[in-house]
């Protein structure tokens, strides 16, 4: 079982948090903080596994994480998951994000956290791995997006226009912010399949 999936950036700001067991909001923040502490102090070229200890539910659990550009992707899993399997799952997740957002970067995750949730929901459900085939995931996501668009139809048009205007008026368009190398480069890892 996967107990939790967390994404946060190099400063520990949460970009996505998904807990498959109930924790109060305060505890959730504490877990994110502690996880960030554990993960961020590790060097780049050490192993990607961490015995999470008491963070989430006991010694059986492990933190498995990957670090891409400015973001940490952390999965907290118990012993029924294969460590290397989860690493590959993270890779699939990031590649899927890359495909859905077209060159994903941290800003995509910041402004479209709902979409990230939707993508994740196609991969992991209730803590169990649902689908690992990227094409299948992307197909389902596309189909759902299409449906959303057709629902919005005419009614959605004014809202879209307004948001376009809003974006125009604002001095900073998210895409134009220069925060150095923010786009998540997806390295080509030896694929799992």
């Amino acid at each position, binding site marked *: 079982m996967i107990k939790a999936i967390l994404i946060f950036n190099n400063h520990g*700001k*949460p970009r996505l948090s998904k807990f498959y067991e109930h924790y109060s*909001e305060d505890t*959730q923040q504490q877990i994110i903080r502690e996880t960030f502490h554990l993960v961020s102090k590790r060097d780049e070229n050490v192993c990607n596994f961490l015995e999470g200890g008491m963070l989430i539910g006991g010694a059986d659990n492990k933190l498995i994480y990957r670090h891409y550009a400015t973001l940490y992707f952390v999965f907290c899993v118990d012993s029924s998951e294969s460590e290397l399997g989860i690493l590959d799952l993270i890779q699939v997740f990031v590649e899927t994000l890359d495909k859905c957002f077209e060159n994903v970067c941290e800003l995509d995750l*910041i402004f479209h*956290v709902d979409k990230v949730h939707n993508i994740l*929901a196609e991969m992991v459900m209730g*803590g169990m791995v649902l689908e690992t*085939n990227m094409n299948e995931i992307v197909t389902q996501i596309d189909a*759902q997006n299409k449906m959303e668009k057709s629902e919005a139809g005419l009614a959605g048009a004014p809202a879209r226009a307004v948001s376009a205007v809003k974006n125009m008026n604002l001095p900073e368009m998210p895409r134009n912010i220069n925060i150095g190398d923010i786009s998540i480069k997806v390295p080509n890892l030896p694929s799992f399949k």
Partner: protein
Amino acid sequence: MALKIVKGSIDRMFDKNLQDLVRGIRNHKDDESFYGAVRWSLFTWRGENESTIQAKYISQCIDEIKHELKQDNIAVKANAVIKLAYLQMLGYDISWAAFNIIEVMSSSKFTFKRIGYLAASQCFYEGTDVIMLTTNQIRKDLSSPNQYDTGVALTGLSCFVTPDLARDLANDIMTLMSHTKPYIRKKAVLIMYKVFLKYPESLRPAFPRLKEKLEDPDSGVQSAAVNVICELARRNPKNYLSLAPLFFKLMTSSTNNWVLIKIIKLFGALTPLEPRLGKKLIEPLTNLIHSTSAMSLLYECVNTVIAVLISLSTGMPNHSASIQLCVQKLRILIEDSDQNLKYLGLLAMSKILKTHPKSVQSHKDLILQCLDDKDESIRLRALDLLYGMVSKKNLMEIVKKLMIHVDKAEGTTYRDELLTKIIDICSQSNYQYITNFEWYISILVELTRLEGTRHGHLIAAQMLDVAIRVKAIRAFAVSQMAMLLDNGHLLAGNMQRNGICEVLYAAAWICGEFSEYLQEPNQTLEAMLKSKVTTLPGHIQAVYVQNAGKLYASVLQQNEQDGDKEAAQEITQMLIDKLPQFVQNADLEVQERASCILQLIKYIQKLQAKDVPVAEEVMALFAGELNPVAPKAQKKVPLPDGLDLDAWINDAPSESSSDDENPKKMIFHEEEQRSARHRQPEMDEDELARRREVRKQEQANNPFYIKSSPSPQKNYQDASGVDHIPVVQIDLTVPLRVPGMPLSDQYLKLEEERRQQQKQDRQKKKKKQKRDKKGKRRHDSLHTESDEDIAPVHHVDIITEEMPENALPSDDDDKDPNDPYKALDIDLDKPLADNEKLPVRTHRVSEKKSPEIETSPVEEKSKKPSKKAKKEKDKKKDKEKRKSKEKVSKKHKFSENAENEHAAPEEEIITPTSKEESEKPTGEASDLDFWLSNTPVQSKSQPEPLRNEVASEPVASELEETLKEKDKEEDAKSSKHKKKKHKKDKTKEEKKSKKKKHHSDEEAPESVQNGSLDEEPLPPMSNYCLLAENSYVKMMCDIQGNLQDGSQVVVSVIFENQSSGYLKSMEFNVLDSLNTKLVRPEGSSIHDGISVPFQLPPEVSNEARFVFTMESIVMPQKLKGTLTFIVKTDDGSSHEKLDFKLHFTCTSYMITTPCYSDAFAKLLESGELKMCSIKVDGISISFQLLLAKICFHHHFSVVERINSCASMYSRSIQGHHMCLLVKMGDSSVSVDGKCNDSTLLGNLLDELKQTLTEKC
């Protein structure tokens, strides 16, 4: 007015959306660090601090959101909810909006629905009170024609399913498991795990279908099913052993690495329970290890092979090859540059270590190397490994290496870890590997130099343990401890709890208890009474005082023996001078002991003044050896007869006993509370702590309260006080270290020399022997030193710990009673009983009971639990109804279900006995036995797989073939078994009641139960009959009623490719009749076919299932249908078709249902059933076979059998009861049937007749 509305909605357009919110928060950033932001925002939420801009901005946004949530427009609400979901991630509690979230969930638009479910999945949990309002909405979404509505509901539900939701929706989800879309199927399968967890009763009814899904054509669904069963089996593996053959088949056939990994992990959990399974697995697993390129798979294979080897454990010489293979592969992993593989390699290695330490020990170099790794995770793993690798020979060397690491280690956590590991390694299995305890004591002493460790108590415990249990070492230990005490002030600096000063506790005790070994007792005694000692924690001081007493006694004795009166008086005087500082101590224990001993010594002084020899009597105070007691000894003391620990000794203490004003009384008060706790377990530790806190508070606020001790040292007593004491870091260098080499190193050197010496001695001896034997055994000179050869330095007498007499042998492994998985420990092999059904939505209007129920009190009883549940549900329905009064349209819906309700009570008539259930699994188990026992024979005849890789390939496939066949056979067999078992039990029960009448029946039940040991084996039977066939494809079909849905039957069709081409795009279509319709996917017309979800390579067969709905089931029906497909050969492809006629017999609507004879009798008496009978002549088969045929082909079960007469029962999917009385005469059989519906009965009897005449 209208204008206002328009204006309002335009205003709404300018509401912030999620992006605006995020942007806003980023613009109002005042604190770059996340910690700051969150801390502030959390404070803001609590209303404590609103100083930061961002927090202000967010609270402003929340106000806006609240306003938006009040709007009627659902789009606005959804927008608000998505923003809330974002804020939830930042740590804001959004549970107040739960109701609005539900509103958004119930929107008809997918866009909003998805937002609603997302927010719900983020913040709903069992404690959310409005969650029960979602039941109907979720049910509606689950049955939505849009697959994504269903999907989104399933995803959401998986995050917040509660026991109530699970109970109410289990049936709906179960239907979804057979949904036409694999997308829905896989989600439904996965969520079942959550449902099982919350509602364990659903496991048994749902399990057969879950099992089915293991062979689903869609790999995603298959993987989901494997996933769920693996999760289930991990917690309660023994219940899933019977699935091993199925998983074995999957393992050898699947190519999906995810599935393979899961299955292999599952086998890892199963093998400890069934070693034979392990033997069977080794071969395919080693093959996989050799063939796979995926590291993850390789790793899991190695892991499971290790588990297998552990389960086989002893004496399998031919498996040494497998061990070698594993170790060798792991070495490759550990040597890999990828840190992840290195980590995992070490992890797996530690598992091998437990059973095969020898094979790991050869890789010691590698593991010691890992200790130097920069990665802490890897270092810790390597440490774990070292634990198992030590031997008598290398212990000192390894510990020396670890000591170096201790010195080098940065960061206290890792150093503490090292410390505990050193102690673990040395003390493991009763100090098995320690040859020189002097060395160990000096290691422990060296460890006390560690700064800031939390493990002082651990070192102390070791010191005590060694000193007490190893008699020979006491003298040395005492001298070392005396040294520690002399330098005690250096250690005292570390005042933390469990800090290093704990070792002084051990040192003082050892010096006191074994004072006879002390070189200079006077000096030690002085050291123990230094004023510096009073800064130590109370419990240590207490030990100091007590042992000062012991020491004094022995000094006194020494002096008296020497006749040195002056020295004796001197020492007495010293104690009298020094002890008062302890009498004023804040710690009660210290106070008490000090005053006791002080008074005693004052008395001694008086006696001394009179020149009376006192030493003997004083020594008597501390006489007797203290023996170590085993940790569990207390638990194992048997309870004496007639002692009731729960009985009240006094009357319950009244709560009113007010808080004491008198500080002296406090002692007793505390005691009283403690004893009260024993009697009232519900008053827990927390509660006590809280009360104490309250009392302290009261005392602090009470100006008249006299503080218990006027001494300023009082502060030391409470933990908070300790923090204020400035802790001086003292440089601990000179006194403890022997100049030059650390002490333990000296021992190492000595030890080496000693061993060398021993070796030489031995060799000398051998040479002598050799000379005697004239060099007969030359190879002896190549002899390597083994553990046994190393003799300990001095004879060490390790005292075993004491246990009480007649200790209870029970080794109680305490299981957590709150374990949520315990509820899922359910036997799945038992046949489903009738009352084990998932609750189906029913309507309360039809509460009028059917007459049968009222007439049978026995049945009433058996139904109680389910009825109760129903009542509860009805109540809930009531509530819901009240809430949704305006929704009149629902009523209409309910009335549809009224029909079902009518059927339900009738279905509940038959209930199983526990006896019958308990006997069934043996049948399953024997199947498993058969599967397990068979192959080893096979594999024996095969060439050794490891050596000969080429040969192993065909072997594997051969194995697979045989397995497949066997599986098929077993399927048929096991279903037979089930029926047989029922029969047997029925007859047995019958026998009991009618024993007097039928004495001669004795053999009958024996012969009915045929499965394994009968004289007349049943011919193989199959319900699959040929549907149609041409040169390309052959279709076999079987029709079965759907247990869960009264109007559905499932047609399983096996397609077999008979051509040499590839069969593609097969489409299955039938012409629906008014009564019978094929269930097609949503949105397709009645003329569309259903595509068969697989392709067939040449000579391969596969099975597909099609669901049909039925209106009436009393008549047999025939449907015309066509299978169209494309045959692809090398020459090209052609379009072909095959017509068939699907024959729905009445038999296919029957469901095998067990029934009791008394219920059966009542059913017959009720007079509601119509009767019909047939007679068939020319029957030559045995009665037993005849019954078996009826059972198998017509889905009946035997209620009772007497000689050549049997009563049988079955039930239709729509709840018709069908009772048969079968009598066998000479070559003729008469069958009398009774059924609610005469048409159905007539048709069924016709079919029965046909079966009996045709096939006999």
